[in-house]
């Protein structure tokens, strides 16, 4: 298991009577983007702080690059880059001065620090504002400066807490591109978010958090198969005749679920769109929409918790 960078076993955090993180297990491999997803207050940030040794664990263990954050926090923090939720910088200093302070805390020699700062700022497209005070930076620029700090640190693991929250779509797109850049550089990225659809595109694997536990873990497709059932979902909107009956009659269709007025969600073994179109048109129905449904995390999440609630 040489390529495992983070391994948590039974990790637990208790505040008073509240189990903020309840015996979770997961592992992250080198060069992958792992998403911790879940609503606010599900225990994502607490998990991250425990990995960095910034808060004590109540039970279980976590291993980061072969070090124990409880006993060897300095070794962990030297190798792990952290971008906190709504990261802050010293407003009265320039971007360069802010990064220089971090470089000094890391103990980098002066000359090397300067070249690393220039390269890092180049990589996040902030080279032109290097000597501007951070007070003038937008939210998106601050987040990028946070990424630059991780790049400058040459971190082996990057932990990003809600990196895209509060960003406009364009900034989000740019930031996600930079996160992919980290992955290309061989960095293991762990990111947390409550915005499922935004991060699903970058994550190789995800863990869905709920009330301090990991409810589901795996690739997005795996989760979709697990929760929504394996198969090929499509959405059909049509009018005229017994559409549901027709849809059920098509070979390979496993389930037909109404999705509002004149719309059905069809799950089949294979892509049955051509057959659906043919049959509806043949019986004289009006086909208004026929869409291939990509499994979305949002849906996985909602369905899973609906199911869980029903079971309870």
């Amino acid at each position, binding site marked *: 298991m040489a390529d495992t960078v983070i391994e948590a076993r039974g990790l637990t955090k208790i505040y008073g009577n509240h189990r903020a993180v309840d015996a979770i297990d997961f592992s992250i491999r080198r060069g992958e983007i792992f998403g911790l997803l879940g609503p606010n207050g599900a225990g994502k940030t607490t998990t991250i702080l425990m990995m960095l040794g910034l808060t004590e664990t109540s*039970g279980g263990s976590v291993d980061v690059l072969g070090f124990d954050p409880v006993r060897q926090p300095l070794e962990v923090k030297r190798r792990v880059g952290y971008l906190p939720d*709504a990261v*802050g910088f010293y407003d009265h200093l320039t971007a360069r001065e802010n990064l220089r302070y971090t470089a*000094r805390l890391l103990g980098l020699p002066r000359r090397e620090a300067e070249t690393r700062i220039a390269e890092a700022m180049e990589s996040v497209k902030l080279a032109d504002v290097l000597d501007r005070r951070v007070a003038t930076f937008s939210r998106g620029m601050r987040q990028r400066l946070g990424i630059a700090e991780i790049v400058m640190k040459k971190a082996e693991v990057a932990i990003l807490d809600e990196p895209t929250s509060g960003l406009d779509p364009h900034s989000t797109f740019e930031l996600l591109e930079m996160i992919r850049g980290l992955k290309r550089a061989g960095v293991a990225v762990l990111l947390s978010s409550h915005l499922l659809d935004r991060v699903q595109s970058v994550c190789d694997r995800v863990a869905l958090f709920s009330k301090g536990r990991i409810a589901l873990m795996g690739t997005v497709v795996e989760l979709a198969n697990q929760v929504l059932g394996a198969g090929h979902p499509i959405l059909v909107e049509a009018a005229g005749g017994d559409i549901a009956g027709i849809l059920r009659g098509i070979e390979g269709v496993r389930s037909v679920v109404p999705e509002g007025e004149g719309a059905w969600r069809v799950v089949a073994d294979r892509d049955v769109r051509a057959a659906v179109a043919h049959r509806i048109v043949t019986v004289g129905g009006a086909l208004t929409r026929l869409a291939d449904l990509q499994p979305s995390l949002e849906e996985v999440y909602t369905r899973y918790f609906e199911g869980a609630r029903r079971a309870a």
Partner: protein
Amino acid sequence: MGSRAPLAVRRQGSPFTGIGPVFMKELADHLSSVRMLVLTLFVIAFGAFPVASSLQTLRTVVDPNSFLFLRIFTLEPEQVGISFVAALNFVIPLMAIGLGFDSVNSEFNRRTLSRVLSQPIYRDALLLGKFLAGLATFAVALVALWLMVFGAGLLLLGVPPRGVEVARGLGFLVVAIAYGGVWLAISMLFSVVFRSTATSALCALGLWLFFFLLWPQLASAIVSGVAPGEIRSLEDYAALQDLAMGLMRLSPGTLFSEAVLGLLSPETRTLGPMLPAQMRGAIMGAPLPFDQSLLLIWPQITGLIAGMIVVFAAAYVVFQREEVRA
């Protein structure tokens, strides 16, 4: 308190890793800040008046005291009614509070705390670095002020200070820095305890006012409360005096003024009531040698330094237990 890591678990690496960069950054921040400028102006404005009046008096009236330079600090000019050291006694806490009241909670509010603590340093280094930077800033300002007073004395009195006067003056500087350190530690404690900078400033200033305005009254009220109906012996009286002085000495300002009295008024032989036994063989008004004065005020100096360390330790303990998340 929930649960804690077992005691056997010890963290590795020096707690002082990274203290240098923290110190340098904080020092640069302090020295370049507008707040520092305001505080310096404040101290100069407060100090200039007593010093100027003292110098005026010393130039016109022939003072029998041979410690002319020290008189600049301690003389109470008629027009002002407050000596330079008394003004400092009042202003030093304000300056130290100004330097420390937002040192930790502002990092928290700017959301820089978790980012800085995710670098390879312990919280120890952050807090101690900030404290030492504040103390250094304060010392720089105070030394500058001290040099200005001595310079003004040289120019206007036209006589150089004697070696023992310089030594006593330097001793005063050390005491003043320790006094500032106590208040810096107090204000940093509040900055760790309270998330809001306004609350922390208010509490520190409140404590300052309490010690200056309320505590003397309160202390004497306590003493008269416990005093027996009639004082029968000298021992009774001495015990009561001891209690009164012990209570007053809980205020750092009292320790400071006593230490300064011993240092800058060499004729001071005792800080409490004087017993006839102590008077035997003494020439009234004759100055004590420097080492004897130092011996006299040694408890006050150690008291100030101990107070500084105790309060800082309290801030340290609270900071270690604080959650860094917003």
